[in-house]
């Protein structure tokens, strides 16, 4: 189920067509169709095992899809790996750094591996954060290591940035700093970012687009604002006018069952909600879509 219909204008920075991936009997991605518009910062949200990492790994040519195809800036990474990877900056799930190497060594290595790596640019980014270049990378804090990973990805000056749950192991302050650096870079470079996370609140201020993955399928793909405006939340099974039910899930206290409703396409989102309905938060939207098809869903975080 998608809203907004993917990229509305221009070429997609990242596109998946009928993308499926199985690991033995487990289906990680099931005929995923997705288009991430150029210049957007997209949140890829879903619970653990939803297929977020698999999708990003396929984009990085780390995994081969069983069927379908993916294109990164118009290039199939499995068929033309070098071409595709030249257009991608990647931040892995765990900030992996070389234990014996300094921060500066990491930049030198990136320069030796990536022909257009901008060492000065990456160095400036790290300078701004006060990360000493001569410090051994294995002595950096988790937040600093994540920033190093981001600086390496940004130094490639790639058109597309793929960030695989980079915030998962960071404290709130480090998360905020990370997001800020990412947004500054995306704004100044005009690049496209796909940021995966299973923590909705981390990404809702940073992103302008939302993709919800659940059970290997795209549950929602639309601009963030549209996701907020087009949904309502009620405690009872009394739908707002012209709305269709998306899914039901437990409230935070676990006492009530909440239902997420999707307003009809023509409905005026600014209309006064009924007495029993309220505007859905992004977390509610995500919970509602993940609960769809699962009966009463559990709280996402």
């Amino acid at each position, binding site marked *: 189920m998608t809203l907004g219909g993917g990229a509305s204008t221009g070429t997609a920075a990242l596109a998946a067509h009928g993308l499926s991936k199985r690991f033995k009997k487990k289906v990680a991605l099931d005929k995923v169709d997705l288009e991430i518009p150029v210049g957007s910062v997209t949140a890829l949200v879903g619970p653990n095992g939803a297929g977020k990492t698999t999708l990003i790994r396929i984009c990085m040519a780390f995994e081969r899809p069983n069927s379908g195809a993916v294109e990164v800036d118009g290039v199939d990474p499995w068929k033309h*790996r070098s071409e595709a990877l030249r257009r*991608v900056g*990647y931040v892995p799930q765990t900030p992996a750094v*070389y234990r*014996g190497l300094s921060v500066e060594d990491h930049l030198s290595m990136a320069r*030796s591996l*990536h022909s257009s790596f901008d060492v000065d640019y990456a160095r400036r980014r790290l300078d701004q954060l006060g990360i000493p270049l001569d410090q051994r990378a294995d002595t950096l804090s988790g937040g600093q290591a994540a920033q190093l990973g981001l600086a390496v990805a940004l130094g490639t000056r790639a058109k597309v940035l793929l960030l695989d749950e980079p915030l998962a192991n960071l404290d709130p302050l480090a998360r905020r700093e990370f997001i800020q650096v990412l947004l500054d870079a995306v704004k100044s470079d005009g690049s496209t970012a796909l940021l995966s996370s299973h923590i909705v609140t981390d990404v809702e201020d940073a992103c302008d687009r939302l993709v919800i993955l659940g059970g290997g399928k795209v549950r929602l793909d639309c601009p963030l604002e549209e996701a907020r405006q087009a949904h309502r939340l009620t405690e009872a099974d009394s739908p707002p006018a012209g709305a269709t039910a998306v899914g039901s899930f437990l409230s935070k206290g676990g006492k009530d069952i909440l239902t997420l409703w999707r307003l009809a396409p023509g409905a005026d989102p600014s209309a006064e909600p009924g007495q029993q309905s309220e505007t859905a938060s992004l977390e509610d939207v995500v919970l509602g879509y993940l609960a769809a098809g699962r009966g009463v869903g559990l709280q996402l975080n």
Partner: protein
Amino acid sequence: MLSRIRLTFKQHRFETIAVAAVCVALTAAALIEAYRLNSLNVPLSCLQTYQGGFIDPSQGPVTAAQAHCNELAKSFFDTTRSLDMNLVQLLLLLVPLIAGIVVGAPLVAREIEQGTAPLSWALSGSRRRWLLGKVLAGVLLLAPLMLAVGLAANVLEGALNPGLNPYASFSNYLGRGVPDVFWALAAFAGTFALGTLFGRTMPALVVALVVCFFARAAWDAGMTHFVLRPFAVQQDQQDQQQSGIVIYGPGGSGSADMYVYSKSFIDGKEVTDAQVNDWYNQNMVCAPMPAPTSGASASSTDLSSPDASSSPGAPAAPDNPPGGFACQTPTIDPSHMPQQVMYVLPGKWYWQTVAFESGLLLLGALFCAAIAFVWVDRRRPY
């Protein structure tokens, strides 16, 4: 590429320093041991006439010069049998393999274990180029170090066998000189290929240790049985008289042949070993000997013929007489006795043989490397 090689050394700092330190120390130790032997200045004639301290009284009284000669020879052989000498020789045999394994095991496997492979592979469009940089670093580390170890081993071999030219002899030829470099490279390539396949350092290390040591143990027999056999030539009679089959002790012509195989003949007809044994069984006469009286020397028993009591053809004794058995062949024309012809690689073929076997090791290394280069492109980085 230079930057990548430098960073590979830095990344594998421990292995780099450990292997370099061991190789330098071993080279120095081999040269010191060689110096110890050379500084004894034992004349070659002393070593050739030395009989392990036994002095034959039938040869008359021992002169002062002979006694000095024996003393020098004894100190020489004591040094060659010393613990430190044996340790150095053992290490010279093992270090090329161990160094190759230690450098090769973490090359790719540690990147996968520690989760740094996705970082590098995302940056490098070509994983093969990424691997090439790492492999070059390993080769640049191992080749000069192993050459130094191999040359030092050659010097030691020359000192252990005075009068022997190490570059024209097959005495211990695969454990010294240029082959050391190729043993190390083969072990290195095999191990990093295993590391690429497994993605784990320790399993790659253990499997490589087992495979390499079996390969090394089976190499000599495999080569002489299957590869070098067609190239062997009948040993020169003069060499046979001068040096026997292979010179492992001091002296001789300075050249040691490599025994590959032999053929036996009776009356000009080629026979099997079993037929030779049958011949001895049929033609040998054994008789029980009286118990030796005190003071009797071993030399008093005539065991000079090849068909002595230790011969494989000796019949089993129903009882063990106190003096054992003495077996003799009746007087037979020597031309009708079994004859053995040795087929060898002459010592002067040292360089050709070393080049050939080093080439085989290099081919093996390239084959393993090719597996790694193919697999690294296909495997997951985690």
